[in-house]
């Protein structure tokens, strides 16, 4: 079965497209309180220039900064059955979905794209924490499967940025079944001998951590990201004691041997280029060879040009 049905038409992925114009030109860093100018903050990949705090970044913004010249082609994810359980809590699930779509301008909690990163062809997938906590349901499962299939088809590595509170409760058991489903996707990559690199971002918890987000060939995390299976509150309630400082944060996991690296978002792209090129047995990237960020000629058919 081919999960890729077709490509979406070119689309403007400008950081400052209509809905992304910040109403307030200044953002206060929640960590250190420094007022940061929006353009400077965006250039800094939403990392506080004063204290290094990593603020959330949307998948589209991330891809704009990951792919050469900010150019990438979106891979369309097959749509699953809507509201498979006809789930209703205090709100109807379709209403929650619509609200998330309106708030984010995205159809669901994961974006899949292909393009070049440091002249290295890759497929990338990024989870959107703003969209119902990035939760993993049928769509996210489909996204990971289609990203893996696309990577296998084109012989490219897959780089996955995780961010999720866990499985999407409104899809019940079908959300849980994304654990084995996405693990099959990871197996496809491994069998094809293609690198699967996971970048864990804040927060990555629950069933997501217990499946595709922990099965990478290389496991990198952003600084201070919360990464766990059971959340700290649940653990405190269970064991009835205070947890140590930094518990379940990226650095803590690194110390306990659960990660390969903790990397500042601003250095991540270079590192990913270096790693993927070695794993793909490509010659080292030459920095000067990279197209300038606004170069539109690098991939004429691709979208995302400003």
């Amino acid at each position: 079965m081919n999960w890729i049905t077709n490509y979406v038409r070119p689309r403007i992925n400008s950081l400052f497209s209509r809905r992304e114009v910040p109403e307030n030109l200044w953002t206060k860093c929640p960590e250190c309180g420094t007022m940061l100018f929006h353009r400077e903050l965006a250039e800094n990949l939403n990392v506080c220039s004063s204290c290094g705090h990593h603020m959330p970044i949307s998948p589209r913004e991330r891809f704009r900064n990951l792919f050469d010249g900010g150019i990438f082609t979106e891979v369309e994810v097959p749509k699953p059955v809507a509201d498979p359980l006809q789930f209703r809590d205090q709100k109807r699930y379709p209403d929650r979905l619509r609200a998330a779509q309106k708030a984010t301008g995205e159809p669901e909690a994961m974006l899949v794209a292909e393009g070049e990163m440091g002249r290295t062809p890759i497929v990338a997938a990024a989870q959107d924490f703003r969209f119902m906590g990035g939760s993993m349901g049928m769509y996210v499962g489909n996204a990971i499967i289609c990203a893996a299939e696309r990577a296998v088809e084109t012989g490219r590595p897959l780089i996955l940025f995780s961010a999720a509170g866990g499985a999407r409760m409104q899809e019940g058991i079908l959300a849980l079944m994304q654990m084995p489903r996405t693990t099959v996707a990871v197996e496809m990559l491994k069998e094809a001998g293609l690198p699967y690199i996971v970048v864990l971002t804040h927060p990555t918890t629950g069933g997501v951590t217990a499946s595709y987000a922990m099965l990478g060939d290389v496991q990198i995390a952003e600084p201070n990201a919360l990464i766990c299976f059971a959340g700290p509150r649940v653990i405190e309630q269970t064991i009835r004691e205070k947890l140590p400082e930094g518990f379940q944060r990226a650095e803590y996991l690194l110390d306990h041997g659960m990660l390969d690296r903790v990397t500042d978002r601003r250095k991540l792209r270079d590192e990913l280029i270096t790693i993927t090129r070695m794993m793909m047995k490509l010659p080292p990237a030459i920095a000067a060879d990279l197209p300038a960020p606004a170069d539109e000629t690098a991939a004429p058919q691709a979208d995302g040009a400003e």
Partner: protein
Amino acid sequence: MMSYLDFEKPLAEIEGKAEELRALARENDEIDIEKEVAALDEKAERLLEELYRNLSPWRKCQVARHPNRPHCLDYVEALFTDWMPLAGDRNFADDHAVVGGMARFRDRPVVVIGHEKGTDTKSRIERNFGMARPEGYRKAVRLMDLADRFGLPVITLVDTPGAYPGKGAEERGQSEAIARSTEKCLKIGVPIVSVIIGEGGSGGAVAFATADRVAMLEHSIYSVISPEGCASILWKNAEKMREAAEALRLTAQDLKALGVIDRIISEPIGGAHRHPEETIAAVGDAIDEMLSPLVKKSRKTLVRDRRRKYLEMGAKGLAA
């Protein structure tokens, strides 16, 4: 001693009355209570049937968690011979919440892996109430590897409230251990069949229940989150567990309709805890029926079909 669930209270009253009469008759032969007791027994039987014919999802959760329900080791003892438990993950510890080892199932050598909840206070604590730590999943991975190398089918018995949410468990990589166990289930070139005998609690269950064939006992449950947990998040009130249990569709019947499981194993009226022997025998027959066609398949076919099954799962929602 029978321990009654809250919804069984009217039943407890009738059965209690019948028991009292019998005790009275034992002390005094002149009292003739036969008719009265027979009437009470019949009433109790009818009520039991009524109660269990249409258990609500929440009541099924209660039955699935019943302390007298047969647990993993009860099945192992009754259904397997030459039981040879194997311990340890070779890294850190042996997790007593997970039992595993080699055994013969109807003469065929197999590897058995399951969650064990324990039967009394002491053993429940020792078994950590069936909540596994990373070592448990890593032991399972090791045993599945062993099964794979020696061509032994794997049988898993799932009964866990969930993976243990503890400090050490997190530090030693609970999520990675679960992920690796699920990965191993998908990778092995031998048949793997799974029966959810009580609670299939979230990722802690998936780690063993990713299989060629999955069966559930009629009143067992399998869910992404406990109804109490779901209620406290979505309803902001843990007391709304009945509503959450409905919404989550966690019963064997719902999961069959969704195409997540392959078969439902009937429980005698009154549930597995009232008739453990019959239930265990039915599970044995179901395992045999699921396993027999699989053992004829090649390694390649098994792995391919298993992966395909999961890739296609959920595509049709409730229309599956």
